[in-house]
């Protein structure tokens, strides 16, 4: 009779361990998925840029400096796959260059009236929203995962199987100040 009790208890403990481990795996994969979602939106933004540059060139070809800055930023963003930090820096460079480009377009009423330009502007603004939403979702996923591996008794499983904490997405210092637009 005693052996039966021991077997049942051991089986229950093992089952609990398996369930805990599986739920941690699920949450960690959600964090990875959320991170790649941000990448999807960032890539979408990069894909919109060539069309935008061509449209603007049609009306403001002599604004070489700004146009070149945008193309330059885009190319380095595509190439920057070395580390997440390098990628984040490249993406914020793209944001800055795009901001200058749109500020510039204020001086060209013909450009602003162009249907193609307007719809590209909308698409880009839409993509910026999605990037923000994707980052929000990543933050939620990280919160859920970090909390799960810190809670007891999951923390025991987490440390034995090397589940490490994930980092939140941090806006760089530059993003926290209000951007200055120079005409």
């Amino acid at each position: 009779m005693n052996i039966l009790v021991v077997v049942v208890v051991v089986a229950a403990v093992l089952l609990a361990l398996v369930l805990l481990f599986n739920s941690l795996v699920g949450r960690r994969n959600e964090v990875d998925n959320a991170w790649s979602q941000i990448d999807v939106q960032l890539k979408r933004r990069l894909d919109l840029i060539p069309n935008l540059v061509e449209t603007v060139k049609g009306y403001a070809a002599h604004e070489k400096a700004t146009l070149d800055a945008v193309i330059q930023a885009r190319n380095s963003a595509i190439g920057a796959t070395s580390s997440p930090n390098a990628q984040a820096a490249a993406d914020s460079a793209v944001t800055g260059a795009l901001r200058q480009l749109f500020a510039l377009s204020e001086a060209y009423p013909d450009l602003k009236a162009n249907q193609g330009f307007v719809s590209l502007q909308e698409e880009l603004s839409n993509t910026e929203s999605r990037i923000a939403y994707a980052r929000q979702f990543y933050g939620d996923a990280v919160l859920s995962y970090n909390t799960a591996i810190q809670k007891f008794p999951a923390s025991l499983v987490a440390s034995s199987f090397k589940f490490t904490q994930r980092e939140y997405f941090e806006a760089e210092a530059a993003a926290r100040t209000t951007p200055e637009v120079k005409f």
Partner: protein
Amino acid sequence: MNDLIASNKRRTFFLLTGFIVITVLVGMAVGVLIGNGATGTIIALVFSAVFAFGSYWKSDSVALTVSRAVPADPVEFRRLHNLVEGLCIASGLPKPRVFVIRDDAPNAFATGRNPKHAAIAVTTGLLEKMNRVELEGVVAHELSHIKNYDILVSTLAVTLVGTIALITDITIRMMWWNGGRVSRGNDRRDSTNPLAFVGIALLILAPILAKIMQAAVSRRRETLADVSACKMTRYPPGLISALEKLQADSTVTHSASMATAHMWIEQPMSGVNDAGRLGMWHKLFNTHPPLAERIALLREI
């Protein structure tokens, strides 16, 4: 916000448990009265569950057909589609099918048995009267219904109401046929068994109690959807402003009916809201909390 959501879910659980307790009590009352409590309850439960879950399975197509909703054209309603897609990214939901209803009254609903088979519908009145952040708040509220499996919860509630209604109805009929005799197995017994009166009282009151509980569950889930929506958008003023506009607007939604009333973001029936003060009786049966209360709660977040 997270603890508001957690407490809301707890209260729903307790309400549904209370519901089940009432069902069991009714079953016991039936047992006292016609000696067949357990079987009767189970049969009623099965019938009710089959009907309710059958309609739950098809809830999306039924609700959409009844409201005369049409699929929202991606070009004509691009702003709406973009909003829905953005919020789905923020909440991790798959994108539901988007429908539009040609009606001047601002309103919206969500339906579908799980996030993969979901649909949301908005009226053209809502699209015209709300600005971007308000529309975002309303869409987030509807998506929260989908995310929190509210259709499933309300189906559970409807199943229990149906069960109770069926049992009480059949039992009262059987008692009439029996000529008022109590407990068939004891023919000689005096029918002044005191439990019989309690049983009868419970049978008469139970359906009303069940309806009240169903409305209470519905109100709880509406509040939960409000709070979840703010968590999704991280911008409570959007939904607050939308609710304030709904409060000021008095157009009646024509495509709604009592049967679908619980799914909309705001009561589609007019005449229930007299100058903002609801009669005590009406308050018990409301599927939505009063708008003033909802706005006050959201301001506290």
